[in-house]
């Protein structure tokens, strides 16, 4: 029995507003401290927050955005889309047929274990340093977690669901599409989430190694030419993009998996 007479004091203090304000206050305090330290030390490595902010506005509310941010995003989305389509389709198929899964699993586990950035040199060798290389490398990195998770999801479909479908005379293909695939969705989304963060990392790395534009190139180049506020501004932009992508992903996941969250015992 939950102890109703004892309020859950351990978990709460103050009103929700006060609790959120505290978090924001700490961030503001940290920024003010940064500003003061930076002004006091006047080191070029630590520019004041205000300088970073003005540089950020100046750099990114300008055609720069189209030159560096848009190519990064397009490459990333292209690579991620390829990885998602291939990963989900192959993963569900592999997971649905047990013998196929047994055959391929060790091979896939090994491919997944390769740190994806290690294949960038291969990509450069085979396709040069253009867009295609980056898209391939991103797709390669994001593919394995998506594929392996989709396969696991399809493999662990509750038996009674498949049995029920069979009893009702649902054909093999229909079982795959209307029972296995939806049941594997929670696993698929877990893989897609990992894949997204890997794709994001891979775009930055591939642009640092072989590129003439894009955010990875921009940040590294800013550092090398001692354009330090620009470097910080680039990192801030990456943080904003990362945050937005993640929020968009969670919104989609929440919608698609609404049925699943309702079904599972504890909220995720």
């Amino acid at each position, binding site marked *: 029995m939950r102890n109703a007479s004892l309020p859950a004091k351990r978990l709460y203090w103050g009103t929700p507003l006060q609790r959120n304000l505290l978090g*924001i206050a700490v961030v503001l305090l940290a920024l003010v401290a940064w500003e003061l330290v930076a002004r006091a030390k006047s080191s070029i490595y630590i520019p004041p927050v205000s300088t970073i902010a003005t540089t950020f506005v100046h750099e990114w509310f300008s055609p720069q955005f189209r030159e560096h941010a848009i190519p990064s995003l397009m490459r990333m989305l292209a690579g991620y889309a390829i990885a998602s389509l291939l990963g989900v389709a192959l993963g569900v198929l592999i997971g649905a047929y047990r013998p196929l899964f047994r055959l391929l699993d*060790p*091979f896939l586990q090994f*491919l997944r274990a390769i*740190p994806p950035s290690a294949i960038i040199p*291969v990509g450069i*060798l085979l396709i040069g340093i253009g867009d295609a290389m980056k898209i391939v490398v991103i797709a390669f990195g994001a593919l394995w977690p998506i594929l392996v998770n989709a396969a696991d999801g399809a493999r662990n479909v509750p038996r009674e669901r498949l049995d029920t479908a069979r009893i009702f005379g649902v054909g093999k293909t229909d079982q795959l599409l209307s029972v296995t695939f939806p049941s594997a969705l929670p696993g698929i989304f877990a893989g897609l989430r990992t894949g997204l963060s890997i794709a994001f990392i891979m775009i930055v790395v591939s642009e640092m190694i072989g590129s003439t534009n894009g955010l990875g190139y921009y940040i590294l180049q800013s550092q090398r030419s001692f354009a330090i506020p620009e470097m910080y501004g680039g990192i801030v932009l990456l943080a904003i993009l*990362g945050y937005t992508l993640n929020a968009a992903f969670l919104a989609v996941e929440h919608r698609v998996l609404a049925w699943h969250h309702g079904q599972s015992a504890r909220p995720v």
Partner: protein
Amino acid sequence: MQRIFPPGLLFIVGVTVLVEILARLGLLSSYFPPPSAILAALAQGLANGEITSQVGMTLSTFAEGLVLASVLAIVIGVLMGAIPIVYDALKTIVELLRPIPSVAMIPLAILFLGLGSPMRVAVIAYASFWPLLISTLYGVRAVDPVALDTARNFGVPPAEALYRVTLPAALVSIATGLRVSATIALVVTVTTELVAGNSGLGFYVSQMEQASRLPSMYAGILFTGVLGYLINLIFFTLEHKIVFWSPAARGAVQ
């Protein structure tokens, strides 16, 4: 992670033999050397220390970064999880820093720490800090309140309750976080070596690419894969050993 089933092993051998035959027949681009050449390069690199010394470098950087991240993440995670005011004070800053892709920190780290191994350790620690922090935090917050109330009713002081009730209960979640962090740490180790390294496996791979020593390059990549597989296996086993009593580890629940 599954055991290596014999058919799976056969498949790997089969693919290797197939690629070998295709390469020998000249049906593959010259960018794909036959697997036998890659294995020979691997054996040679291991024997003459060319790869071995780089592996040592990679592993020590990896370990330093992961240990640093683990200590920080577990301490801060437990504090945030156990003390509401700490959680509320830090949550916004965590939410703001977490989405920054770790590799974006490489230029910043180079600026402050140069190109050597401290820079790599810092980036690795930054990258592997977040998953462990979040899972520690959730593990501590998800501790059954009844268990804590029981401890309090029996007169257990809060500090001891933290050690005897909260930590063991949160261990399941911490162990999972540690495994995720270890995987990320290895990826970031190789990445930093590739982008801004002067040693390590990632550096070796890019050196071999530039020297057009393709079998050695593939041997290096193969070895990072082996390393990744082993690290995952070790932490997976560790996870199941540490929390042998949890239903998930016993295989009762997926």
